[in-house]
């Protein structure tokens, strides 16, 4: 059975006078032990909200969370707040996007690492400090004992992210959620960080929920990929399958919009028109329709359902999917 199974997760903001807006609209997916799952989509598609909902970090006021999310067989949304607290940081940990703002500027890095050890691993004083140093060392921060005493602003961007990762893996969690862990970093560092994550995941058998807009990252890491659009999963498939046969026009568009060095001369990029703001309500039809080259009147009649138009285990939410075999299959990174 799977480690995390999310079923019809919905997150609604507003209410109390303000006009409601649904950020996550019935998302379902699964993460198995040690598996790396990607949540892909442009900013605003609800992927970060999903992760926060799973971690229980959404503000209590003005937010409604619906659906089920089972972690290790227990429903996250019905368990007590304190039980959730115990879970957080120990069984399930998270890495955030902006390493600078995610670290407390006035508390030494060391303390920020040891505090989690004290909380979840009942470590004290010297022992905790040793372990913290060890962790920093493990995530590849040189001269850890000195760094422990330093403050975030004294560390480089990469090191900050490493420190955050060290905190996340401090208690060897079984699920690690990484929300755009590399976007704030420059390319060379990005690669290193991804390497680090991969390595940690492999060694510990930690499951990783990778949230990103960057298909490159997905290609590099994920086993299973879920493409989100306007709060709904529009396509879900194994990495190879997806890259080989993107079926939903959106996914197709995304892949088409990645620059590829090996692309034949003259073949130009095909960016997706418009922005996520020009959408229509799912209730009326496919939210992507306004940006879609392939839409039909059919697209505008009610919410399209997830189907398996192409292969088993390859779901797509489209009435007019892309089925013509194009030749990308070979170039899928192994």
């Amino acid at each position, binding site marked *: 059975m799977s480690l995390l199974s999310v079923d019809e997760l919905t997150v609604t903001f507003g209410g109390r006078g303000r006009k409601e807006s649904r950020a996550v609209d019935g998302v379902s997916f699964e993460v198995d032990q040690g598996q790396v799952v990607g949540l892909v989509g442009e900013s605003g598609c609800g992927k970060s909200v999903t992760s926060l909902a799973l971690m229980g970090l959404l503000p209590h006021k003005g937010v409604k969370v619906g659906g089920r999310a089972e972690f290790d067989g227990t429903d996250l949304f019905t368990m007590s707040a304190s039980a959730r607290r115990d879970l957080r940081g120990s069984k399930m940990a998270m890495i955030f996007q902006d390493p600078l703002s995610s670290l407390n500027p006035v*508390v030494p890095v060391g303390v920020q690492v040891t*505090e989690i050890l004290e909380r979840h691993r009942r470590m004290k004083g010297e022992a905790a400090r040793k372990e913290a140093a060890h962790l920093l060392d493990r995530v590849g921060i040189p001269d850890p004992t000195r760094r422990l005493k330093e*403050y975030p602003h004294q560390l480089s961007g990469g090191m900050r992210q490493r420190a955050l990762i060290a905190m996340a893996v401090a208690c060897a969690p079984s699920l690690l959620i990484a929300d755009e862990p590399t976007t704030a970093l420059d390319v060379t560092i990005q690669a290193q960080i991804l390497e680090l994550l991969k390595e940690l995941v492999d060694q510990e058998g930690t499951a990783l929920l990778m949230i990103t807009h960057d298909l490159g990252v997905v290609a590099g890491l994920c086993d299973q990929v879920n493409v989100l659009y306007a709060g709904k999963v529009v396509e879900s498939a194994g990495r190879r399958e997806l890259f080989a046969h993107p079926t939903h026009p959106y996914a197709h568009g995304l892949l088409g919009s990645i620059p590829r060095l090996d692309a034949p001369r003259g073949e130009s990029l095909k960016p997706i028109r418009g922005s996520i703001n020009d959408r229509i309500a799912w209730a009326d039809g496919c939210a992507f329709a306004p940006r879609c080259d392939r839409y039909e009147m059919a697209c505008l009649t009610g919410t399209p359902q997830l189907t398996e138009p192409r292969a088993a285990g390859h779901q797509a939410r489209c009435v007019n999917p892309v089925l013509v075999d194009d030749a990308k299959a070979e170039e899928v990174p192994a």
Partner: protein
Amino acid sequence: MLRLVVRRLLQLIPTLLGLSVLLFLWLDRLPGGPASAILGEKATEAEVARINRALGLDQPVYVQYWRFLKRIVELDLGTSTQTGQPVWDEFVLRFPATVELSLLAILIAVAVGVPLGYFAARNRGGWLDVTAVSGSLVGICIPVFFLALILKGIFAVNLGIFPSYGRQDTGIDATSVTGFAVLDGVLTGEFDASWDAIMHLILPAVALASIPLAVIVRMTRASVLEVQDEDYVRTAEAKGLKRSVVRSRHVLRNAMLPVVTAVGLLTGSLLSGAVLTESVFSFGGIGSFIRTAIDARDYPVLVGFIMFIAMVYVLINLLVDLAYSLIDPRVRVH
């Protein structure tokens, strides 16, 4: 750190010189002289002329200023025309009173204001929040002297819980070491004297505290609200830390930064509030003395005291900056 201190102290010198020049120009513009203040109804032109000559006030300003500078070099601040005593003695006599008053006031303001503002922010929109905010707003709008009179009327005159005026009860002949009544009592072991002094301080201090209190409450509240949704607080939550830790280490500590600065500025501004409070409780401090000095055209006192106040003000701000750099490592570095 040390360099900062030295630089600031050096900056003090031009400030004071400039100030002294301004003061002398101002004094020159002041109509009338000390003579008529000394003689009252008995003043006749001849007498006034004689006294002014005796005081060297018949000379042009620049001469007077030159003399002043010469005296300063000999560390002589001149003599009060009201009391015929050295300005320095008068200062030493009254400064402690105002300091005690201001300190207790700011102490009350912080001790009450910070928690109040904090909890107001925590349950924003709750009854505590509403009362705290509206209370602080009203607090700013009540003229200090009026508040002082009301407090005195209720607690000193009607209930008779606190003494209605002065610094010490009659007959408590406390031995004066530092001039700080409370401290002296402790030093000499005359705790009854300390106690008595404190009782005399409370009402004026509360009146004086009203505005700083209001400011601090609203400041703390605002800054806690701001810090609460900072990324690093979310990180802390993601670590599953105990609420208490999150609040104390991650929220409060950062929220205090702006408050510290505010406290410094407020302490400086208290001196002026003290003028009113001191005169309501005829509490012999520098504020009220300078006021009478202005009426009595007591030039030496005016120059001396105002320079002292300016100096104190600068020093307070220096202290604040130091304190700031202690709690905010980012400042410490550069």
